[in-house]
């Protein structure tokens, strides 16, 4: 009978071990594969390393002095003069329809709100939580109330002062939609 008990306790302990123990893999270990015949791409994928190029990357820049299809080069930099020039020269190709404003609102939420605030007053969460030390510009200042949509479009695209350029992150149409949203909703609400 005594042996019986020891056996049972071994089984119980083992059962507990099975319940609590997860896999034997460390977090850095991907585990095993089973006949991965068609699992790995033979062609180089976007982010895979590539031994054929000197820098080892698969992603290439366009050849020098060429521009990608449908891309319109942006001639203005982030200086003050360019900003004034862009504000005067650029024209918004979109109309302020309800749908455009809705997309603009969503894009504003994703890309702008964290610094410039839900209301556009420059009191975004990153600033109020003291993570970001410099106060972001208010979009409701007198200067911004007087600025055209193209001015907002330009600042998003090229950046200004400590604000980085967001042109490569937000598509041109969405930039216009954000500008329209700021003008037609955020600023319109303050003017009331």
């Amino acid at each position, binding site marked *: 009978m005594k042996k019986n008990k020891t056996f049972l306790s071994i089984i119980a302990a083992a059962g507990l071990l099975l319940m609590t123990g997860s*896999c034997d893999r460390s977090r850095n270990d991907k585990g095993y594969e089973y006949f991965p015949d068609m699992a790995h791409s033979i062609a180089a994928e976007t982010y895979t390393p590539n031994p054929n190029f000197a820098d080892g990357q698969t992603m290439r820049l366009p050849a020098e002095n060429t521009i990608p299809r449908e891309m319109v080069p942006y001639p203005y930099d982030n200086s003050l003069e360019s900003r004034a020039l862009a504000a005067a020269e650029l024209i918004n190709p979109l109309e302020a329809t309800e749908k455009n404003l809705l997309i603009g609102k969503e894009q504003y939420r994703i890309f702008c709100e964290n610094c410039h605030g839900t209301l556009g007053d420059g009191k975004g969460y990153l600033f109020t939580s003291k993570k970001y*030390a410099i106060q972001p510009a208010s979009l409701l200042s007198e200067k911004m109330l007087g600025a055209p949509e193209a001015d907002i479009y330009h600042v998003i695209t090229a950046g200004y002062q400590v604000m980085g350029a967001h042109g490569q992150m937000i598509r041109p149409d969405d930039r216009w939609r954000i500008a329209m949203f700021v003008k037609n909703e955020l600023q319109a609400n303050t003017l009331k």
Partner: protein
Amino acid sequence: MSHTSIKSGFRQAKMLLVSLLAFLLFSLSSFNSNAQDQGKQLFEKNCQVCHKIGGGKLVGPELLGISQLREREWLVKFIRNSKELIDSGDKLAIQVYEENNKIPMQSFTNLSNAEINSIIDYIDNWQPVQKKEFTVDINKKDGFTETEIRRGERMFYGLIPFENGGTASCISCHYTKNTDSLNWNPSAHDLAIAFVEKNGMNIYESMSEPSSQVMEKAHQEYNLTGEEIYNISAFLSEFSQKETKQFKIFPKRLMLFILFAILMTLAIIDLIFTKKLKYRIVHLIIIAVGLAVHLNIAMTEAKALSRTQDYAPDQPIKFSHQIHVGENQIDCQYCHHIADFSKSAGIPSNDVCMNCHNVVLAGTNSGKFEINKIKRSIENGEPIEWIRIHNMPEHVFFSHSQHVNAGNIACETCHGPVAEMHIMKQFSDLSMGWCIDCHRDSKVNFKDNEYYSSYMKLHEQMKAGKFDSVTVEQIGGLDCMKCHY
């Protein structure tokens, strides 16, 4: 009597006065150092992005000796709101503005007069760090002898204590092996690589000029001698050649498997040959439980083949999603900005990091070391090699845009509670069953999406009231060629 009492009274007053004066002086000096600290902190937080003290022009002008150059009252006004001053026609302000490429200075209306003054005080009292002279060459980066390397290794591991104090050894913070959880301090390997780099700092510089508060706190008590620095340099230069060791976890399941294999063999032997146990039921129970355990382990292991659930590799930078998404509430799509119109969600480029980190120079937990890796990558032009976690096999097509944009599925549905992950891990198993389950249950925005207007039959059935919503399955979400083509 009265005389003495007056005299003693006077003496008391004098004592009181002296002690009061001493207290006043003391509190003043402590207040002074507090103000100095405050000025330093404010400077690091607000000014450092654009200005240097005694290091030449950055974005804004050099600030060393600024209060001899300009009046304090004007400085306070200019710091508070330079634009107002320029607009009001202040000649000096306009001159400064034009000298600095017409980049207007940020206004600091949120700072009080006292705070601005404390910053100016800090600049006035700033002194360059006194360089210590060493008899050995602490900048040497290779060509060390074996004994020097071994001695350095023993120091790094804490086997030889430091001469001038410092209780913890290097290795207690700077691990030579990776661990199961996140260690915010740079690993020994990271340190070694940063050290041997062309313009890498020597150990004395990096320890005596702490770049962040995190680092300053950690290294306060250390005062290494030249020889110690030299030996540790030797160790680091050798260590930079080595790979980081992978930590191993105890293989519980394998042990369990072996244990039951042994138990079952013993039971069978006893059952057929030795017959020591009276009751056969015991043998049978052992064999039954053993088989169940073996099958269970075999099944879970087989299921995990080619799937990398819970894979959470060490990334080249200790980037924490918990801090960025959880604490800072940055939207997923701010960094993964192509998720809504591209197949891949995208790995953010260095530019995206720098949108914030040109101002946020030090992390709460990691100090400057991890953020500086981005800067080094930009300067060297060498991309940061992030390690891909989620990867679909080549024979499956998966597009983020379809799910994020058309499907309107929240990122967390598949990627799990990313806002709580310091180390990013694969939350879902990404198996076919998992895909199919979701396609069966998820409803499609059928009425409002023009794309589905050609699904005449479904529209008719819906009108007839057969069902009030359409799942992905009904529009062909389970067809083989939907994902495999």
